């Protein structure tokens, strides 16, 4: 890897050699140096072309852009904070939603063979009351279905707990096991 210092040295050497040559040809020293520079052309442009041709040029550009970003943030702290806050809220909300989708929709339920669990329901004509399944049907499904290995259901019942000072409603959960 060649340093730009090395490249600059080479340019300087060139100008010295060219000046020497012109002086040897009889050009006055003061004019020789100026003419050597003139025939060299645009030194800065040549240096830039060398720098841009370097393999890690993109990295130095990246570092420079990064520094510039930090500097701008320091100069405008309020807008920087607003942007950082926006990003934080956005990223937070997105990752919360994604983790919900992941656990609820994408991951199988946390039971053995959870990926084989499905929920089954009956649908009824619009306006008809109730969406529950008669428990006798579970037995029917278990007996007749070839698609599912076993069906189970649950239902809840409201009870009154009167053991305390005041009565309380208790939801009782009943479960019918798969065959």
């Amino acid at each position, binding site marked *: 890897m*060649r340093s730009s210092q090395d*490249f600059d*040295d*080479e*340019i300087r*050497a*060139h100008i*010295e*050699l*060219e000046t*020497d*040559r012109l002086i040897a040809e009889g050009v006055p020293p003061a004019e020789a140096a100026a003419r050597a520079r003139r*025939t*060299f*052309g*645009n*030194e800065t*442009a*040549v240096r830039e*072309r*060398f720098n841009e*041709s370097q393999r890690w040029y993109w990295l130095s550009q990246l570092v420079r852009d990064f520094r510039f970003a930090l500097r701008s943030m320091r100069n405008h702290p309020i807008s920087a904070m607003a942007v950082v806050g926006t990003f934080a809220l956005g990223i937070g909300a997105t990752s919360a939603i994604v983790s919900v989708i992941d656990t609820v929709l994408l991951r199988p339920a946390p039971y053995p063979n959870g990926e084989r669990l499905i929920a089954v329901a009956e649908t009824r004509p619009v306006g008809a009351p109730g969406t529950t399944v008669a428990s006798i049907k579970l037995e029917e499904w278990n007996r007749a279905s070839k698609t599912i290995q076993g069906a189970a259901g649950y239902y809840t019942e409201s009870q009154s707990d009167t053991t305390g000072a005041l009565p309380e409603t208790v939801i009782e959960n009943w479960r019918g096991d798969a065959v």
Partner: protein
Amino acid sequence: MSTRVPLLQGTLDLLILKILIFGEQHGQGIARAIQAESGEVLLVDHGSLYPALQRLEDRGWVKAQWGVSANNRKARFYTMTAAGRQQLHREASEWEKMTAAIGRVLAAQAKET
């Protein structure tokens, strides 16, 4: 001073390689040699030589090493590699083909029908 023509795009590499066939040389020497060998007709912007040399070096066609010039100045000397010699042959024959073809087109006469 006679009229000078600027170098054709893409020909600098070829000329550098050709000059280096005579032995190691530093950038200023190459620039001088191109100008002298062309009968002072070709106008070489000395600065454009160095990115070109760097390119040739990156491709492995020339090697460079710091040394001391005849008049005791530090200078970076370039030598041609074997790959550079092959590249010179390739580019030179391409150039000859192209100039011959252009010459034929320019010399074209109206055809009788």
